[in-house]
């Protein structure tokens, strides 16, 4: 029996017949596709963290000299690592796309009294991402 303590709500003691509470299953996230997509989106942050760690290790080995870097590359060439990195890349992409698409809902901008359309905010994120990636790629591949 629950007691509601907020003032102003009914202040007599409610009589509760036997209410039925459905237990939410531990596998609630399998109930529909949207819930599943949500959980995958959340899990993708693990892969984002993994990518960051790999990148840090890469930079660390770069700093230790060409031999260390070659050894790093050898370890990366292992088929298991390639598979893991491929899957991680897909998840990071998924993470990025869902993040950019959801960003306009949190960032509401008003220009000249009218609300900036969601698509514009999302697009500007994509443009910034691709732009910065292009600059980084130019530096690395030159």
């Amino acid at each position, binding site marked *: 029996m*629950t007691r*509601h303590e*907020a003032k*102003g*709500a*009914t202040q007599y003691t*409610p009589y509760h*017949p*036997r*209410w*039925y*509470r*459905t237990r*939410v299953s531990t596998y*609630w*996230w399998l*109930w*529909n596709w*949207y*819930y599943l997509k*949500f959980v995958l989106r*959340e899990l993708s942050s693990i892969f984002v963290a993994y990518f960051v760690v790999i990148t840090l290790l890469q930079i660390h080995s770069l700093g230790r000299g060409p031999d260390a870097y070659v050894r790093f590359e050898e370890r990366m060439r292992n088929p298991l690592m390639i598979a893991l990195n491929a899957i991680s890349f897909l998840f990071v992409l998924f993470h990025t796309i869902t993040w950019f698409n*959801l960003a306009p*809902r*949190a*960032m*509401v901008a*008003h220009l000249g*009294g009218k*609300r900036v359309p969601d698509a514009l905010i999302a697009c500007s994120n994509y443009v910034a991402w691709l732009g910065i990636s292009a600059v980084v790629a130019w530096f690395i591949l030159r």
Partner: protein
Amino acid sequence: MAETIQLEVTRYSPEHDAAPALQRFEVPYRKDWVVLDALNYIKDKLDGSLSYRWSCRMGICGSCGMMVNGEPKLTCATFLSHYAPGAVRVEPLRYFPVVRDLVIEMTDFMVKLQKVKPWIIRKDEKSIADAEYRQTPQQLDVYKQFSMCINCMLCYAACPVYGLDPLFTGPAAIALAQRYNMDSRDEGARERMDILSQHEGIWACTFVGECTKACPKNVDPAGAIQQYKLTAAKEWFKSLLVPWGAK
């Protein structure tokens, strides 16, 4: 077109039953009938003991929210033709305690609504002789969307966080708090911030986004919550960097 359609409706009487169970009914199929019309047919012609809430039949009172084939819907706005010829399963709104058949217990929402102080808070109120607070159409647009909430609670039925943690304030209550926060006439944002930045307030939300999908009035409660998270985070940083500026 089939002449009839099957409805599977949850039945539960706490005086007799240990748990809810589905009961099958066959109702006439009409192209312009909604699920609520089918339920009314069952109650009027087949079994008068079926209990459910309804009132306006036009999607503005918010009484008739139920799960239709696993999705939270207003039964007055859900056409049978959308599901025909298959059976239509009607169950009580998810994540709320079931009182009887399709009726759920909603005191939890009423308490949470009151908790977020959904009224204009001002230091000094104008008197009637001073006419209206001026508010341009642009200022009205800023919060108008959040003021459309009909309190139907479909968003609560869609929110897995609410299902797993019933202490969560929930989408509609936070959206209504935000409606007042963004009203140019209101000065109560600070007061509401203390309530909403608690653990069961906005920070319990993980932006699943199902609430916005379920909302029949395009209130976008998920958007309201995320916008509020940004505001709360900004205020927190400000209070760290500029502690003397806090109101």
